[in-house]
């Protein structure tokens, strides 16, 4: 073997091992008269010296805890613990059943997620709390055996208990009285022991209470929850997990206050109530509704009135001061009830209680409560009221309250589905009046302080700020391009910013250098004045109460990059909320970025929303674990510095954002939600003639993706996680029946009906292997096609199926009986997918994704071998065309396209030789603010064509305006 000629890299590497003074001679020796090679190595050596001297790095090292966490998921072992079974995953970590190889004892091990551990303070608390929990010796608390960390991963080892959770037990209905008493006693006993050690559970709920094989209680997660930011465990979105937790949380916890032992007693009361009544004390269809119920509602008086139920209600007092003074007291009460004795305390309290008005409006309950003598015994507490100001399933967003809180303006699409207009209503009677009109979206209203005028952003004529009388009238353009106008409190100015982005539901924005500028303009019109022109980016101005300063999200340094990761570096001081005088002068950094960072809230969503005047501070809605809640950051009016910890105001699993505050510290905000459903549009598919309006075919709390329709248009399938895993559902459109047709434990994605509708081929992923399954609809038989990782369309006789290969770029066809697979299409650089047979089996339509473009082709089938690229016919040339589907007669192709800037459904007619004929025809435009095909994450978008309808998935955003008082 002859040694290969050294290349530049070899020489570079070898030269680096020599002292610098010897390198020249080395190159002379080895490059001979190859001047080019010599020059290359020499230049690279120079650049290397520079890189070394200045420490240049190519980024890409991910944060270590995240990697370690990933490693833990794939590891079979952590320290001496052999991981045996995955038990579950929460917001805070993963739990395994494990074997302690030292003792041979089964244990449960909880590995904390890096998110929890990223914050040093959090980690310390976690470890301290776990150590404290180790000290508690109580028969009803799952014991913490040890804590530790390996490779930066913190873990806690708990005793492993066989049994089931109380949550599972409660699915069977209420407990009998002796059981309820026994379980309640044991929980209270555990709480008593923990509280004596100064440990608060914070997240007591049926899912955390295990009944072992003897029916005895073991409470999980004791003390560990203490380490976690109050509501983190409930901020789980989509899975619905959170809905369960909210209803057991004490009102003060829901408000973000520090929990006390009394908070645990509230949770205890909710658990006891549920054991007796057979249903949760606080329920609701949405997180906000549950929360509202916890904050203001009274549990319904279900079942026989009993002293145990009285005890539950005592624990469920909204005011912590009115609950039992300790867990020990609860034990004493249970003991008395057991003995049949009389509890003076219970009698006394409930004789004085106002009649139960379980379902009255919360305001009324408060009013009645206020006249009872109780409030005068303990210091009166102002309970925040939470009121919904708009209703309906549409999109109501961007609230603006007038200074006196009497009027509400907001953007809504209720008048004209799809287009946002400004509406105004009195807060007290709530009759909405439409103020603006036209085909363009209007958004971000702001009231003048006298309540007479409303400034807003409109997309009309290229976008700008407009003003309209609150009483109605013509809208007048104030200035071009501006976004999010805000009247100054003295009414003289309107502040706004100019930037490059379009409307975004959550207004998550990020101040990249050069992308945003901030202005003020006289409210009556005039010339805009740029504020802080020296900033690299300045956006989202908010007025301070003196009308002389603006607080804004700014980036002072044009060189500093803003990756999300940068926000987590406290040193990134040039990005902050800044306060600037409008008359000129330097801007002062508030320190908000550092404060948010300390709370784990530094994120791309740290947009300041409004100033609260009474208690000086700023409202915002940072993102935490996929949900956004309202927070309040205190900012001192003396030095414009953040003067305390940010406080949480709302808790939920959706998006609470766009806060607007009044002079008396009420806050309006939008609670926003997005869902993904299957829709259909009636059409004569051969004629490309739409014959009616779109219709929603699915609708519940869950997302429904990958829709497919049978050729006769009578049945649909879709993938949904309703049951926990991603399964394939079949729905009969006439009868409405639905059933699961996939086989567990697979996770199901796209599916395809056989032409006669008797079978469905679907892509399933099982044990990380992707395969195709065919489900027979007549006899539920399942066939596995492991030769195919993913399916495409069927041949007309149902005997062949298109396959998308493992290497993505290859499309093949499989003979279902013989399982013989023949390659059809391939390309060296393009990704080919979504193959579909034409109705006559003569052609295959597919899309090819090539750097930045997705294009639709059809190719003629031949008897043998790959179809050469020269035979392909390009059907589209759009920037992004996707998902080709044939009309039943094979003379048109339907597809999704982003050719007009939105993602819409289009069709292309084909002539006899299958060449495109004419220009594409729009079939369904999804240009609405509320409903869109664009907000769907790309992998999930799907479309299917039958003779009489097209079925597709579309996301729908909805939202309503709420009002609460802050302090």
């Amino acid at each position: 073997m002859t040694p290969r000629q050294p290349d530049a890299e070899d020489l570079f590497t070898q030269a680096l091992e020599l002292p610098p003074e010897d390198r020249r001679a080395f190159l002379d020796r080895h490059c001979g008269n190859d001047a080019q090679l010599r020059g290359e190595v020499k230049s690279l050596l120079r650049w290397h010296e520079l890189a070394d001297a200045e420490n240049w790095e190519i980024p890409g090292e991910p944060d270590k805890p995240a990697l370690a966490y990933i490693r833990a998921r794939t590891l079979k072992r952590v320290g001496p613990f052999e991981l045996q079974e995955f038990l579950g995953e929460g917001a805070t970590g993963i739990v395994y059943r494990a074997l302690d190889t030292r003792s041979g004892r089964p244990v449960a091990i909880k590995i904390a997620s890096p998110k929890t551990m990223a914050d040093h303070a959090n980690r310390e608390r976690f470890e301290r709390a776990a150590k404290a929990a180790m000290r508690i010796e109580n028969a009803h608390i799952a014991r913490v055996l040890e804590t530790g960390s390996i490779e930066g991963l913190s873990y806690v080892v708990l005793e492993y208990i066989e049994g089931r959770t109380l949550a599972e037990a409660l699915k069977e209905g209420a407990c009998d009285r002796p059981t309820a008493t026994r379980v309640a006693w044991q929980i209270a006993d555990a709480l008593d022991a923990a509280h004596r050690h100064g440990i608060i559970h914070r997240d007591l709920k049926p899912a955390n209470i295990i009944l072992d094989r003897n029916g005895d209680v073991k409470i999980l997660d004791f003390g560990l929850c203490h380490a976690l930011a109050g509501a983190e465990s409930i901020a789980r979105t989509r899975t619905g997990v959170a809905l369960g937790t909210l209803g057991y949380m004490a009102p003060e916890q829901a408000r973000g206050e520090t929990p006390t032992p009394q908070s645990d007693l509230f949770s205890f009361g909710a658990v006891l109530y549920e054991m007796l009544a057979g249903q949760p004390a606080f329920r609701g269809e949405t997180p906000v509704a549950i929360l509202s119920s916890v904050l203001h509602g009274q549990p319904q008086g279900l079942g026989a009135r009993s002293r145990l139920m009285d005890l539950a209600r005592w624990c469920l007092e909204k005011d912590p001061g009115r609950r039992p003074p300790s867990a020990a007291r609860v034990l004493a009460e249970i003991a008395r009830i057991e003995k049949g004795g009389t509890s003076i305390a219970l009698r006394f309290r409930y004789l004085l209680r106002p009649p139960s008005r379980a379902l009255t409006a919360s305001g009324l309950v408060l009013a009645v409560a206020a006249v009872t003598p109780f409030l005068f015994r303990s210091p009166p507490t102002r309970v925040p009221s939470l009121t919904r100001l708009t209703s309906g399933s549409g999109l109501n967003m961007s609230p603006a309250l007038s200074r006196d809180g009497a009027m509400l303006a907001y953007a809504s699409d209720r008048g004209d589905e799809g287009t946002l207009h400004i509406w105004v209503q009195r807060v007290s009677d709530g009759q909405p009046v439409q103020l603006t009109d036209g085909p363009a979206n209007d958004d971000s209203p702001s009231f003048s302080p006298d309540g007479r005028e409303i400034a807003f952003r409109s997309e009309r004529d290229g976008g700008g700020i407009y003003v309209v009388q609150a009483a109605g009238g013509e809208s007048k353009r104030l200035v071009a391009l501006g976004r999010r106008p805000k009247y100054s409190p003295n009414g003289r100015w309107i502040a706004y910013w100019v930037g490059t982005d379009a409307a975004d539901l959550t207004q998550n924005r990020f101040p990249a250098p050069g992308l945003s500028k901030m202005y003020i303009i006289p409210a009556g019109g005039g010339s805009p004045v740029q504020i802080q022109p020296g900033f690299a980016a300045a956006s989202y101005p908010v007025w301070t109460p003196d009308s002389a300063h603006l607080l804004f999200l700014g980036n002072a340094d044009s060189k500093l990059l803003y990756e999300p990761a940068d926000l987590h570096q406290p040193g990134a001081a040039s990005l902050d909320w800044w306060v600037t005088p409008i008359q000129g002068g330097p801007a002062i950094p508030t320190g908000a970025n550092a404060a948010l960072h300390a709370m784990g809230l530094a994120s791309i969503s740290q947009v300041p929303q409004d100033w609260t005047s009474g208690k000086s501070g700023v409202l915002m809605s940072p993102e935490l674990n996929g949900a956004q809640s309202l927070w309040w950051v205190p900012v001192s009016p003396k030095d414009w510095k953040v003067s305390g910890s940010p406080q949480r105001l709302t808790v939920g699993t959706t998006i609470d954002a766009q806060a607007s505050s009044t002079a008396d510290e009420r806050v309006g905000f939008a609670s926003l939600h997005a869902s993904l459903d299957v829709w259909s549009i009636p059409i004569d598919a051969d004629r490309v003639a739409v014959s009616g309006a779109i219709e929603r075919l699915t609708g519940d709390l869950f997302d429904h993706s990958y829709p497919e329709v049978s050729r006769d248009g009578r049945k649909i399938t879709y993938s949904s996680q309703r049951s926990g895993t991603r399964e394939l559902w079949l729905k009969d459109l006439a009868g409405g029946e639905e059933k699961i047709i996939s086989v567990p434990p697979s996770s199901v994605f796209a599916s395809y009906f056989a032409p006669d509708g008797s079978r469905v081929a679907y892509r399933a992923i099982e044990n990380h292997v992707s395969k195709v399954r065919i489900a027979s609809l007549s006899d539920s038989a399942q066939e596995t096609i492991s030769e195919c990782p993913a399916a495409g369309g069927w041949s007309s006789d149902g005997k062949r199926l298109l396959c998308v290969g493992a290497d993505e770029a290859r499309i093949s066809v499989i003979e279902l009986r013989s399982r013989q697979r023949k390659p059809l299409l391939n390309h060296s650089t393009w990704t080919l997918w979504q193959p579909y047979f034409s109705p006559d089996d003569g052609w295959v339509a597919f899309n090819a994704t090539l750097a930045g473009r997705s294009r639709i082709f059809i190719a003629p089938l031949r008897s043998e071998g790959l179809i050469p690229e020269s035979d392909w016919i390009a059907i589209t040339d759009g920037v992004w065309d996707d998902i080709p589907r044939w009309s039943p007669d094979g003379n048109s192709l339907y597809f999704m396209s982003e050719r007009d800037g939105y993602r819409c459904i289009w069709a292309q007619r084909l002539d006899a030789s299958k060449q495109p004929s004419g220009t594409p025809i729009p079939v369904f435009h999804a240009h609405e603010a509320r409903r869109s095909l664009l907000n769907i994450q790309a992998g999930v978008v799907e479309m299917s064509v039958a003779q009489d309808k097209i079925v597709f998935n579309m996301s729908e955003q909805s939202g309503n305006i709420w009002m609460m008082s802050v302090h």
Partner: protein
Amino acid sequence: MPAKFGAADPAMAELYDELRRIAASYLRRERSSHTLQPTALVHEAYLRLSSLNRVQWADRSLVLGLAAGIMRRILVNHARRKAALKRALPPLEIALRTAKKAESQICDALTLDAALRRMERRYADPAKLIELRFFGGLTEEESAEFMGLSRATVQRHYTFARAWLLRELGGPAKPAA
């Protein structure tokens, strides 16, 4: 390139879907965020896949390594698409950093991709390494495992690629000749 790279795991198709999905949502959500952290996306995708489907990915470095290539394609496609649409959107930018000076060298995804393509033609391994590290966030150790090379070799490739890339991307200032 190790042999196992050719024998692609069928679940890669799902990984691709998931990455595309996450990237799409990420890029839409932060349309004005001009600098993206691809490694975060790759890891997010990985975590989501493993939690959503209870998939226990057996070979992490293989998955992350493949994801790096996919992510590069997604980001480059995204950048091309934005350019093609001529929307007034900022290009996706990517930063090389220096720890010593508070300075970064910014280039857009397309420029980096083009540079990597040039590097690939002559120096395949260093180019692959940059892809793994930059787009996939693989550590040195994982890169070595994925590429089937020793850590020392990976270190050498890195040193070389860094000098090469700094030169090709224009660098902060030319070094003295």
